């Protein structure tokens, strides 16, 4: 788009301004201050894009009359056009576009020709003054910035900056060099913690070795302590033995002393050939040969008594037996006296009885006379038989008298059935027959009458038979009574005969007995009684005499025995000649004296036995207590001790044993602990587990490291790619801007670039490649940068969309001469490339710079506004 002519009807201070034949290249418009340069610039923009709002000072209502607006004639795409803008009551005013022939064109034609360039873009890129040049933000508007930064950054408009930030964030999340909260740091801490657990476990081998050593040394110490304990225990045992033996030892001493008192040598009492101090002092050597030494446990200590006592003890059985018979002796003595007395008494009574029995009776006859039960029974038998026969005779006599009386009675008795009775019966039968013939009705009369008659007749017959039979019976009874009486008398006779026979037998028996045949039964019995009385006295006499004789004999034997005992004891015998009965008491007295001696001997024996027993027991007890030490050694030891000393020894030894045992227990406990710990160490899997756990953590750490490394590698790759991009893929705008900037700064700066993904600019010094942002540049240099940016944008826009005239207002004022010249040259070159430039200035020297540097530049002196 080339402006050929600009005409203002009325716009701000301008009225009817007409700028004709504008150069398609560089136009330098010189106007003094307040010369309406800015108004003219605004006019161009307003014609193309519309008036500003009414409140906007840049609306530039006409101050000096004329219609608000004007037109611009321009050439575009080979054709000529006019665009006019005038106020029509609306804010932007009305636009009219027409072709070179004046034909109106649709309103949209302008936008087409402008390639939809916006007001903002135009204002910031194509129409700018010093103010805009000093402010970067005028290039940051979206429409503009898009042209600078976005091109070629990434395909599809992804978010590279977001990616870089995310990588950094992820990386920082995992690790920061001195961070403590990051994943890697936490893992390091965890591993550190595990390591702290592992470290002591890895010292276990040392502990193991130390423990083994400890165990060995403890074992050795235990063995030593065991030896000490054994020694102390042995001492304690000896002391306790002494303690236990003390009593027996005292008993032994007592027994020995008693034996001595009893006069028994110790050897005889079963003792060893003692070597006690006392014995040694006495110089006695009671040596008994082992073969003859009596065994105190089995031999009789009585052997140790004097012979007389031993003899007594030997005869003790006899002495006691004889003494036990003392009552018997006394009984025998009494029995002899009684027997003699009784015999005398019985003899006197016998003589009396013999005299009473009469002549012919003497002791011999009496002794041969049987008076026993048999004879008495015989006598009673005879008496009984005679009494029975007499009683029978009497009874038969009575019954014969009764039989006679019976006969007489039968003879006197009458006929039992009388004649009158027979007659009466017959009469009654006839009467009844008659009555029945009259009274009974005729029908039954025949029968009844005949029946009554028959009955009556039969009754009479019976009565007649009865009378006949009664007479027969009476006859028979008389005959029987007579027979009975006869029989009775015959029996009476037989009884009389029997009585006589019995009396004969009685007399015969008396005779056979040598007794008086006239004696009755009672008399005979009485005689027998008296004989018997005599016999009794005779027997008593004999018996008593015999008793006395027997006792005498027995006593004689007993006394003989006592004397025999005395004899065996070599004692004087008692004379039995003086009479047995008188000898009994002295004999017994001697015996009792003997018994007293015996008891004394027995007591002595008993005492001896006790002492010997005590001696043996004490010796056995000592032997038992002494054990391996031996009784002699023990005794020797005891002799030098007393119970207090022993007690002290026991206590001391006990204390030592207890102390040593406690030491042993302590050592055992320590050893147990060591062994337990060793077993634990050897089987402990904790280290293995921890090592595995540490490996796990290390794996996790490795995972984080890898993740971090991936992000880091990605970050490095991104940064490198960005660098490549920034170096090789900057937008065309920046490349061009760099070239323009380099030209304007006379080669001080070589590049203008926008860091990747950022909407800011940096410049790079040609020498050293140092980059700096615009804020680091001087005012002039930064204005040069922004000028370069605008030129570049304009150029690129021309290529991409449409070339638009560049309207610049006094942009060189802050440049030094050299750079101003360079800038002028650049603008000239830029214009020469087909970009129309309208450069306003109020400084004639700057206008001269332009004209000097750009020979083809057209200088236009703006008229003073009316």
């Amino acid at each position, binding site marked *: 788009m080339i402006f050929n002519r600009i005409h203002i009807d009325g716009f701000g201070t301008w009225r009817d301004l007409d700028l004709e034949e504008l150069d398609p290249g560089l136009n330098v418009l010189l106007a003094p201050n307040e010369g309406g340069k800015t108004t003219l610039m605004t006019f161009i923009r307003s014609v193309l894009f519309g008036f500003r709002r009414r409140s906007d000072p840049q609306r530039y209502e006409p101050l000096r009359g004329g219609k608000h607006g004007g037109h611009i004639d321009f050439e575009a795409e080979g054709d000529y056009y006019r665009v006019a803008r005038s106020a029509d009551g609306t804010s932007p005013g009305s636009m009219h576009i027409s072709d070179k022939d004046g034909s109106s064109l649709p309103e949209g034609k302008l936008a087409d020709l402008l390639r939809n360039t916006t007001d903002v873009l135009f204002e910031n890129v194509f129409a700018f003054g010093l103010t805009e040049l000093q402010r970067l933000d005028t290039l940051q508007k979206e429409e503009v910035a898009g042209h600078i930064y976005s091109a070629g950054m990434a395909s599809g408009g*992804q978010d590279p900056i977001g990616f870089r930030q995310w990588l950094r964030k992820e990386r920082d999340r995992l690790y920061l060099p001195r961070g403590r909260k990051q994943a890697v740091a936490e893992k390091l801490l965890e591993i550190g913690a595990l390591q702290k657990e592992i470290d002591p476990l890895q010292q276990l081998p040392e502990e193991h*070795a130390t423990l083994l050593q400890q165990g060995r040394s403890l074992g050795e110490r235990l063995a030593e302590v065991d030896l000490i304990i054994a020694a102390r225990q042995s001492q304690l045992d000896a002391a306790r033995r002494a303690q236990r033996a003390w009593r027996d030892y005292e008993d032994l001493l007592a027994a020995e002393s008693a034996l001595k008192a009893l006069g028994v040598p110790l050897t005889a009492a079963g003792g060893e050939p003692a070597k006690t101090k006392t014995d040694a002092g006495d110089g006695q050597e009671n040596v008994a040969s082992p073969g003859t030494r009596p065994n105190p446990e089995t031999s009789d200590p009585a052997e140790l008594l004097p012979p007389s006592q031993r003899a007594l003890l030997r005869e003790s059985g006899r002495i006691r037996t004889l003494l036990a018979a003392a009552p018997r002796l006394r009984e025998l003595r009494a029995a002899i006296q009684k027997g003699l007395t009784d015999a005398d008494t019985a003899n006197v009574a016998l003589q009396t009885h013999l005299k009473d029995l009469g002549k012919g009776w003497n002791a011999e006859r009496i002794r041969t006379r049987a008076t026993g039960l048999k004879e008495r029974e015989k006598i009673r038998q005879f008496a009984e038989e005679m009494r029975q026969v007499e009683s029978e005779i009497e009874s038969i006599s009575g019954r014969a008298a009764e039989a006679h009386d019976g006969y007489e009675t039968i003879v006197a008795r009458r006929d039992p059935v009388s004649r009158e009775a027979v007659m009466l019966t017959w009469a009654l039968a006839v009467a009844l027959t008659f009555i029945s013939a009259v009274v009974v009705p005729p029908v039954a009369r025949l029968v009844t009458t005949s029946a009554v008659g028959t009955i009556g007749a039969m009754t009479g017959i019976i009565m007649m038979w009865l009378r006949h039979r009664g007479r027969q019976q009476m006859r028979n009874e008389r005959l029987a009574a007579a027979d009975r009486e006869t029989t009775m008398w015959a029996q009476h006779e037989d009884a009389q005969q029997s009585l006589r026979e019995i009396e004969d037998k009685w007399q015969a028996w008396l005779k056979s007995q040598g007794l008086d045949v006239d004696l009755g039964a009672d008399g005979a019995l009485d005689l027998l009684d008296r004989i018997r009385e005599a016999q009794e006295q005779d027997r008593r006499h004999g018996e008593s005499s015999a008793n006395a004789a027997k006792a005498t004999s027995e006593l004689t034997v007993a006394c003989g025995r006592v004397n025999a005992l005395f004899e065996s004891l070599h004692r004087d015998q008692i004379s039995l000649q003086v009479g047995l009965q008188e000898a009994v008491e002295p004999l017994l007295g001697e015996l009792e004296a003997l018994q007293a001696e015996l008891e004394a001997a027995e007591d002595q024996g008993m005492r001896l036995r006790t002492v010997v027993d005590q001696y043996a027991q004490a010796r056995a007890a000592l032997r038992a207590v002494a054990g391996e030490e031996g009784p002699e050694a023990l005794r020797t030891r005891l002799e030098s001790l007393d119970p207090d000393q022993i007690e002290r020894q026991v206590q001391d030894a006990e204390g030592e044993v207890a102390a040593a045992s406690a030491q042993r227990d302590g050592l055992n406990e320590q050893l147990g602990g060591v062994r337990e710990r060793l077993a634990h160490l*050897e089987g402990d899997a904790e280290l293995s587990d921890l090592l595995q756990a540490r490996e*796990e953590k290390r794996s996790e750490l490795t995972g984080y490291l890898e993740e971090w490394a991936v992000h880091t590698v990605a970050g490095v790759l991104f940064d490198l790619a960005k660098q490549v991009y920034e170096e090789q*893929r900057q937008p065309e705008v920046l490349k061009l801007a760099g070239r323009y900037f380099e030209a304007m700064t006379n080669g001080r700066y070589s590049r203008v670039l926008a860091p990747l993904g950022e909407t800011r600019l940096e410049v790079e010094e040609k020498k050293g490649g140092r980059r700096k942002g615009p804020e680091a540049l001087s005012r002039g240099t930064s204005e040069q940068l922004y000028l370069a940016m605008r030129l570049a944008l304009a150029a690129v826009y021309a290529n991409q969309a449409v070339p638009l005239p560049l309207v610049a207002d006094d942009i060189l004022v802050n440049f030094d001469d050299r750079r101003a010249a360079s800038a002028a040259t650049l603008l000239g070159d830029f214009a020469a490339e087909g970009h129309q430039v309208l450069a306003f200035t109020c400084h004639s020297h700057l206008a001269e710079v332009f004209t000097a540097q750009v020979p083809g530049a057209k200088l236009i002196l703006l008229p003073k506004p009316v």
Partner: protein
Amino acid sequence: MQPFSFLHCADVHLGAPFRGLTNLSPELGAHLRDAPVAAFTRLVTAAVEHKVAGFIIAGDLFDAADRNLRAQIKLRDQLVRLHEAGISTFVTAGNHDPMGGWLSSIRYPESVHFFGSEVSAIPLVRDGETLAHVYGVSFNRPEVKENLAAGFPVEPEGPFSIGVLHASVGDRSEHAPYAPCSLQDLKFRRFDYWALGHVHKRETLHGEKPVIHYPGNPQGLHINETGPRGGTLVKVTSGGSVSLTPIWSDVVRWHRLRTSIEGVQSIDDLLGVFSQTASAIVGEASECLHILRWTLTGGGPLHSELHRPEAGHDLAETLREEHASPAEPGTVWVEQLDLATRAERDMRSLREQPDLLGDLLRLAEEIRSSPPAPPEHEIGTGNFFGLEPESSAAVRDAVAELLEDRRVLAALGRDPWTIADWPRLIAAAESLAIKWLASGED
């Protein structure tokens, strides 16, 4: 000469923890903890069952740095078993269990022979007859850089000679170059068998006299020790010829699985793929607990779903619940799920675009082709000669901020630069950049 056999193992690392695992359940933790001991126990059991004459341990029986008493007690228990079975044990110390690292407090059976820091020979005797001479040498410090093979005689004593050596034989950049020696150093000496240790991967360097053999380690300890692990049963015939039989002893077996999501339409399909693989793995060794790292690669419709936040974690949890709940022998426990998938877009076209992302991806490619070396390893790299691209240097310098942090070094217990797996890091960074900077589809 009497035929006999011996068992050769190395690098048992008793008591060493498993590396690179997280989120272990207590049961799984306990199982892993005891795994090296269990593996060693299996070897001892095999030795007893095969009635071997000798048991040779070529270094790194445990990790001395761990100072794990329990591990050494367990070791002693197993050595006692060998002793009771009448088997002589020959032990050399390696870089992880140098001579000073053995606990003096533990008494080992008299049939256990420890080699010193000078080469010595110990006869292997059975029933009064010398079957072989076993030569060996131990590390007397963790970092032995000299050639220990040089100390072995050229003409060893018979009737059969075994050299026990913990060493890095040949050019092995992936292993610390301790006691380095060449294959020729070993071949030159007229041994019948070289029992090597240090390299954890089973390998026979020379199959004929002298047989030179690494049995590998009895138990893989991390994801880089995949596949079956164990020791070697060496049978020697009366003629002196040698046959090697692997004795697998691992109780935990590591696996890597890579699956492309190309054409996979749903997560269920993906799970199905996993189930098939898991069954196959368990079928091979049901007595082992299997630990697997699954890497999903390629581009496909599942990519965006898999890259949802927490999606990877959720998927891994699902797999653990389905296949290893509880984690025990005969199950497959997913240790890690690596999502290395990409969207179905053409990286090349993205890289060629003349924009920021294009620039970034081109730079990434540049670094990938010339990855940065850690600072102390600069010698011998392009950087030293000033040939390293600026981009690589910039990446290294940036990462150094953390990886050079002394606290990290202390906590990790190893060189933090080992985590700088550049291709992985760069791929992940690219993925992030594409997500943020690429327009359109994703």
